[in-house]
C-alpha cells in the first residue's frame, strides 16, 4: 500500500477531470463519484498508515520517487512523495474529513445548476492539498500551495454571479498572493543558500553550519509569511471572513479543516529552520498569540453565523501557531486534527441551519431552533463544547496542553493572554449556541431538519470531535505524540510554573466561565441582550468590523492602488497608448490628404513634373561627366 501512495492524490485528480468534462452528463452521480473517490482515497490512506507503523519507529520515512520533474543543468527537482508520520497524519485528515464533507455536499448542493463543476473543484482541491502535504521538496509543495489557492478562489466565487462572492474570491486570492510571493522568495533563498530544495537534504540538523543564522531567519520568516497568508493570521487575515460567501461545504473543507492548516503544516515541517533562527520562532509565537486573542474578540461582535465561525477559525489557527512558537509541534498538530473535526462539524451544522431556514445567516433572525432542528442542535452543541475546551472532548486536550507548555516554560504573560483567549472562545461560541438554538424564536420562516445525507456526516464528525481526545489524539503521552515524534522531535518537558493538574483546572474553569456568561446574557433571558447591544453599539460595530483593519487596508492600500489603476487605464492607456496608435493612423491620413494634391489631373502639371526631372537628371549627368 505504501508503494501506491501516489494513488491517494491521483484518485481525486481523476475525479476532478471526469467531473470537469462529463459532470453535466453524470447529473446526480457526479457527487456520488467524487465522494466515492474520496472515501477510496481515505481507505488507501489508512492502508498507508498501517504499512508505515509496521516499520520500526526510527525508520518511518519512505520517499516514493514518481518522476523527474525539472532537470535543467544542475537544477534538479523531482516529483517525490514523502511518507512519514506528519504527512500521513495530514493525509488522513484531508481524506477523512474531505470524504465526509463530500458526502454532505451531495445533499447541500442538490439542485445547483453547476453541481458537477462543484465536485470537480472540490476534488481538485483535495488533489492539490494532498500534493502539498505529501511533497518531498519545496517546489512540489509550492505547486500544491498554489493549487489550493486557485481552488479556494474557484470555490469561494462558485456563485460568481453574486458580486460579493466574486469580490471575496478575488480578495482571498490577492491577499494570499502577498504571502505566497514572500514564500516563493524564501524557497528561492533555500535553493540558493542551502543548495537544494529536497526536504531530506535541507531539513537535517547539520544544515545549521551551512550558513550564518541570519540566513535562516530570513528564510524562515519568508516561509512564515506564506503561512500567514494561507492561514489567515495577522496581518493577512482579512480575506477569511469574506470567504464565507462561498458555499458552506467549501467553508468547512477549505477554511476550517484543510487549506488554512497548510500554514501550520509548513511551519511544522520546516521547524528545524525556525529553531536554528531563534527570532523566527518568536515571531511565530507572537503573531499566533495576538491573532488568537484578536480574532476571539471579533467573533464576539459578529451577527452572521458563518462569520463567527470564520473568526473562530482564525483564532484557533492562532493557537496552533502559538503552540508551534513554543516548540510544541505535536500539540499544534493535535489541535489541528481536533479543530478539523469540530470546526468542520460546526460549519456543516451551520449549513444545516441555513438549509433549514432557506439561506438565513443572521443570528438576530434565529432562535429556539433546537425545537425545529433537534439533531442539528445536538451536533452543534458537541462542536461548541469541543471548541470551548470542555473535557473530555478533543478540544480540551489540545488546548490544555498548549497552555500547559506556555506556563511551564515560563511564558506567564503569554499563558495569561492565551487563557483570556480560551475564555473568549467559550464565550463567543456559547453566544452563538444560545442565540441560534435557544431563547425566543425570532425566525421569519418555519425551519425544518435536514435530510440524512447531510445529518449522517454531522454525526461522523461529532464522533471524532467528541472522542478524539480519548483516542489519545491529543495528550503528551498520547498516541499521536508518540506517532509524530520521529518527524517532529520529542517534546521537551518544561520545568517551572504551576503543576499540570492546577493548570488543567484553571483552563476548565475558564471554559465553564465563558459558557456560564454566555448563558447568562443570551440564553437565560434575564438580561436583555438587545438593549445591551444598543447601548454598546459602537463597541459592537468595532468588533464586527474586525477592529476596522480591513477598512484601514482599504483606504491605505486598496484605494491608492485603484486610483493608480484608474490613472493608468484612463490616461496612460487611453490617451498615451491609444493616442499614439491612433495618431499613427491619423498621421497617415494627414500625409495622404496632403499628398493626394499632387494628383491634379491636369496634364500641364504633369508635364512640369517631367521637366523638373529632366533638368535634374541633366545636371546630375553633367556633373558626373565633367
Amino acid at each position, binding site marked *: 500500500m505504501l508503494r501506491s501512495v501516489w494513488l491517494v492524490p491521483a484518485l481525486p485528480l481523476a475525479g476532478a477531470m471526469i467531473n470537469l468534462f462529463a459532470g453535466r452528463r453524470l447529473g446526480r452521480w457526479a457527487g456520488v463519484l467524487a465522494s466515492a473517490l474520496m472515501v477510496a482515497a481515505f481507505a488507501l490512506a489508512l492502508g498507508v498508515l498501517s504499512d508505515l507503523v509496521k516499520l520500526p519507529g526510527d525508520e518511518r520515512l519512505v520517499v516514493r520517487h514518481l518522476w523527474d520533474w525539472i532537470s535543467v543543468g544542475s537544477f534538479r527537482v523531482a516529483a517525490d512523495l514523502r511518507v512519514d508520520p506528519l504527512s500521513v497524519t495530514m493525509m488522513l485528515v484531508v481524506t477523512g474529513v474531505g470524504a465526509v464533507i463530500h458526502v454532505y455536499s451531495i445533499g447541500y448542493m442538490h439542485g445547483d445548476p453547476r453541481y458537477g463543476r462543484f465536485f470537480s473543484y472540490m476534488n481538485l482541491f483535495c488533489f492539490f492539498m494532498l500534493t502539498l502535504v505529501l511533497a518531498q521538496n519545496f517546489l512540489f509543495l509550492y505547486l500544491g500551495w498554489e493549487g489550493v489557492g486557485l481552488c479556494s478562489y474557484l470555490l469561494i466565487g462558485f456563485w460568481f454571479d453574486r458580486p460579493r462572492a466574486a469580490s471575496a474570491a478575488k480578495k482571498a486570492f490577492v491577499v494570499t498572493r502577498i504571502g505566497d510571493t514572500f514564500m516563493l522568495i524564501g524557497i528561492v533563498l533555500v535553493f540558493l543558500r542551502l543548495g537544494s530544495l529536497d526536504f531530506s537534504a535541507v531539513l537535517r540538523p547539520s544544515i545549521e553550519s551551512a550558513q550564518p543564522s541570519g540566513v535562516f531567519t530570513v528564510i524562515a520568516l519568508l516561509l512564515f509569511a506564506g503561512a500567514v497568508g494561507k492561514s489567515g493570521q495577522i496581518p493577512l487575515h482579512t480575506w477569511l471572513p469574506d470567504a464565507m460567501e462561498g458555499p458552506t461545504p467549501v467553508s468547512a473543507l477549505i477554511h476550517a479543516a484543510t487549506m488554512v492548516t497548510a500554514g501550520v503544516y509548513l511551519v511544522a515541517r520546516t521547524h528545524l529552520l525556525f529553531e536554528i533562527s531563534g527570532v523566527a520562532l518568536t515571531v511565530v509565537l507572537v503573531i499566533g498569540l495576538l491573532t488568537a486573542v484578536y480574532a476571539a474578540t471579533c467573533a464576539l461582535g459578529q451577527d452572521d453565523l458563518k462569520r463567527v465561525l470564520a473568526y473562530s477559525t482564525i483564532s484557533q489557527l492562532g493557537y496552533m501557531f502559538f503552540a508551534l512558537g513554543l516548540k510544541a509541534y505535536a500539540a499544534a498538530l493535535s489541535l489541528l486534527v481536533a479543530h478539523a473535526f469540530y470546526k468542520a462539524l460546526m460549519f456543516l451544522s451551520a449549513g444545516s441551519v441555513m438549509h433549514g431556514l432557506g439561506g438565513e445567516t443572521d443570528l438576530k433572525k434565529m432562535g429556539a431552533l433546537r425545537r425545529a432542528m433537534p439533531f442539528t442542535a445536538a451536533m452543534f452543541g458537541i462542536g461548541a463544547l469541543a471548541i470551548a475546551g470542555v473535557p473530555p472532548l478533543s478540544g480540551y486536550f489540545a488546548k490544555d496542553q498548549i497552555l500547559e507548555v506556555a506556563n511551564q516554560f515560563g511564558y506567564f504573560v503569554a499563558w495569561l493572554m492565551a487563557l483570556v483567549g480560551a475564555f473568549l472562545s467559550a464565550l463567543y461560541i456559547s453566544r452563538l449556541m444560545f442565540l441560534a438554538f435557544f431563547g425566543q424564536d425570532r425566525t421569519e420562516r418555519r425551519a425544518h431538519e435536514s435530510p440524512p445525507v447531510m445529518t449522517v456526516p454531522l454525526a461522523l464528525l461529532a464522533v471524532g470531535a467528541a472522542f478524539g481526545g480519548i483516542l489519545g489524539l491529543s495528550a503528551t503521552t498520547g498516541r499521536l505524540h508518540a506517532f509524530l515524534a520521529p518527524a517532529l522531535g520529542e517534546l521537551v518537558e518544561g520545568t517551572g510554573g504551576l503543576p499540570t493538574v492546577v493548570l488543567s483546572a484553571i483552563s476548565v474553569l475558564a471554559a465553564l466561565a465563558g459558557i456560564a456568561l454566555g448563558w447568562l446574557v443570551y440564553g437565560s433571558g434575564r438580561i436583555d441582550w438587545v438593549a445591551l447591544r444598543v447601548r454598546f453599539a459602537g463597541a459592537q460595530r468595532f468588533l464586527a468590523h474586525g477592529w476596522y483593519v480591513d477598512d484601514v487596508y482599504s483606504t491605505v492600500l486598496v484605494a491608492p492602488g485603484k486610483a493608480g489603476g484608474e490613472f493608468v487605464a484612463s490616461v496612460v492607456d487611453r490617451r498615451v497608448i491609444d493616442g499614439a496608435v491612433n495618431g499613427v493612423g491619423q498621421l497617415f491620413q494627414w500625409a495622404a490628404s496632403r499628398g493626394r494634391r499632387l*494628383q491634379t*489631373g*491636369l*496634364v*500641364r502639371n504633369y*508635364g512640369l513634373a517631367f*521637366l523638373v526631372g529632366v533638368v535634374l537628371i541633366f545636371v546630375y549627368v553633367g556633373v558626373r561627366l565633367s
Partner: protein
Amino acid sequence: MKTPISYFVVLSAVLFAIGTVGVLVRKNALVIFMSVELQLNAVNLALVAFSRLHGNLNGQVLAFFSMVVAAAEVVVGLAIIVNVYRRMHTANVDDASLLRW
C-alpha cells in the same frame, strides 16, 4: 562650311526649350501639339548637324524616320483631339481633369 556645328546644336536647344515652355504654358490642346512638333523639329536639326559633324548619313536617316513617325503621330493625335472635343466641347486642356483627386 565655316559655321561651327555647336552653333546649330545650341540653336536646336533653344528651339527645344521654347517648345517645352509652349507645352507647359499654353492651354489650347492644338497649340500644345504644335509646340510638341516644334520640339521634334529642333531634335531633327540637331541630328542633321551631328550627321554633318561625324561625316556620315546616319543622322539624316534618323531625322528622316523621325519626320515619318511625327507625321503618323500627328494624324493619330489630331484624331484624338477631335474625339475629345466632340465629347467635352472644349479644347482647353485644363478642363480634362477627371483624374483629379
